[in-house]
């Protein structure tokens, strides 16, 4: 659909345009403000990060000055147990939360897709987790998982599943479970919305034909709907993967309340602490470049798979 726009066309419209001098100057004029904002506020700081990663810059040890050290901080990084731990946590949370958001998000989309009397309400319920500030989501779930008076404990105790309230946030393993649930709650909406878009693009005739041929609803889902959702699922997956790699706000809030810090520290949190708490800007820059690298790798996969199809 979009590729049509890129071709040189000989329609009356194109001829009109050529007569008035082509699109080049106008396009440049229209794109300039956006380019200026992106370059000034995103590209320039990004390039600064690359440069900073090559210099030592520790505010806590000012006597060191800011000498050029080349790739030394990268060498330090790959031997830094805290970095490796954060990387491992990030990937671990990434796999669990991305997978979880698909397991929850796809049924959510199917529910929101079928017309019903409560459709408006269902849509608000679907959008709320997506639109909620992540920091506030973290706070809310920290309260739900409270070790003494939390609702989660109340339900478990009343249901006879546990005898005593569990100290969710101060028990390392349980803190991880609580954080995964929180992130899945927050991000399933996004998957559901993208999948909903895919569902709306499937012609009704296809599912009806399967219906007429005697397929059960489950068969129709696996054989007809799911394959057609391929592109939407790919888009949702890439965007979820990116946000999972960068996750910061929710772990940050949890760590404020949980002694089980080592297991909850993600790359984003480690970079934040290295820069803001340890004031080691050079090393934080090197860590940031590593995070760019992981994000870029996922972005390239996205461009290759999704945008590549448009030629």
């Amino acid at each position: 659909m979009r590729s049509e726009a890129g071709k040189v066309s000989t329609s009356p419209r194109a001829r009109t345009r050529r007569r008035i001098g082509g699109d080049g100057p106008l396009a440049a004029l229209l794109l300039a403000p956006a380019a200026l904002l992106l370059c000034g506020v995103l590209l320039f700081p990004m390039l600064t990060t690359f440069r900073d990663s090559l210099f030592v810059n520790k505010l806590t040890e000012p006597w060191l000055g800011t000498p050029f050290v080349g790739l030394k901080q990268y060498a330090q990084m790959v031997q830094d147990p805290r970095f490796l731990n954060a990387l491992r946590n990030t990937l671990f949370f990434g796999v669990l939360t991305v997978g979880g958001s698909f397991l929850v998000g796809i049924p959510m989309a199917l529910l929101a897709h079928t017309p019903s009397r409560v459709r408006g309400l269902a849509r608000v319920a679907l959008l709320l987790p997506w639109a909620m500030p992540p920091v506030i989501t973290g706070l809310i779930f920290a309260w739900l998982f409270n070790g003494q008076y939390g609702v989660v404990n109340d339900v478990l105790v009343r249901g006879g599943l546990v005898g005593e309230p569990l100290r969710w946030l101060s028990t390392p393993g349980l803190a991880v479970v609580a954080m995964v649930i929180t992130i899945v709650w927050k991000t399933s909406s996004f998957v559901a919305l993208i999948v909903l878009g895919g569902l709306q693009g499937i012609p009704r005739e296809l599912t009806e034909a399967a219906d007429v041929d005697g397929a059960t609803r489950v068969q129709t889902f696996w054989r007809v709907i799911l394959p057609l959702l391929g592109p939407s699922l790919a888009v949702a997956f890439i965007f979820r993967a990116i946000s999972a790699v960068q996750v910061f706000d929710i772990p940050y809030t949890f760590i404020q309340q949980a002694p089980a810090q080592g297991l909850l520290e993600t790359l984003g949190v480690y970079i934040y602490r290295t820069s803001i708490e340890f004031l080691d800007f050079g090393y934080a820059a090197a860590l940031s470049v590593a995070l760019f690298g992981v994000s870029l790798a996922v972005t390239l996969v996205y461009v290759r798979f999704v945008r590549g199809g448009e030629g």
Partner: protein
Amino acid sequence: MEQAPRLNLSERVIRALGLALLVFGGFFPLVWMLLTSLKNEGELQKFPVQYLPSHPDIANYARVFSEQPFGTFFMNSLIVSVLSTALCVAVAVPAAYALARLEIRARGLLLTLVVAFSMLPVVSLLVPLFRLMRSANLLNSYPALILPYAALSLPVAVLTLVAFFSAIPRDLEAAAMVDGTSRVGAMTRIVLPLSLPGVVTAALLVFVNSWNEFLLALSFNTRLNMRTVSVGVTLYQGEFAFPWPLISAAVVIAVVPIVVLIAVFQKRFVAGLTAGGVKA
């Protein structure tokens, strides 16, 4: 109107249960904060949990405003979010129009760049952006947040708008231009009015992103009277104490604009986000 598919009884039961679960799951955490905000510390410290407050008390809401300048936080968030939305949309509309409609040789490359920008981790930009704002003397000012918020939301706004602009038939513009309107005239008089829903969607996205942002707000505007609500809600916790009724009340106030927007524009959000997703 869509026709409801024929479902048998068990399918209807499963769907009703699913919908109930969806609605419950979406609303419960916020409802729980609302209930918590109406309790006092004594009611809170009960186990098994007492679900409904026995004497609903709005005193916590008054304390939210008396213990911290929360009204100021709220105004700051409002100002920053509205202005970053205005800036972002003003810049995104012409750019998206050019990318969707004009003949640009590097179109594919430019769109790829926009996607790449949308995937930059904010935490990696924190230190250099901080230095930039400090050298521009902008720390503890609205522009310190408005500029990055507008820039960070620009890629998603552009991609959404490109999807909407592309969906408008080109013949409409062509006809107007054959009739003697200039390209800019065709853009402002034909394409823009028709894509108003897209502009609204993009604006809503930027507003929600800006309202919710935490990291930059936490780091750039550190003076109390320049704080935003997302940072403000974290200021009630002491070193060891978490006054949950108070925090809950602050949370409830902080999400009011988001909940109102979602409730009013739910159709628009779903349409806009799904359109973007399908197109991407």
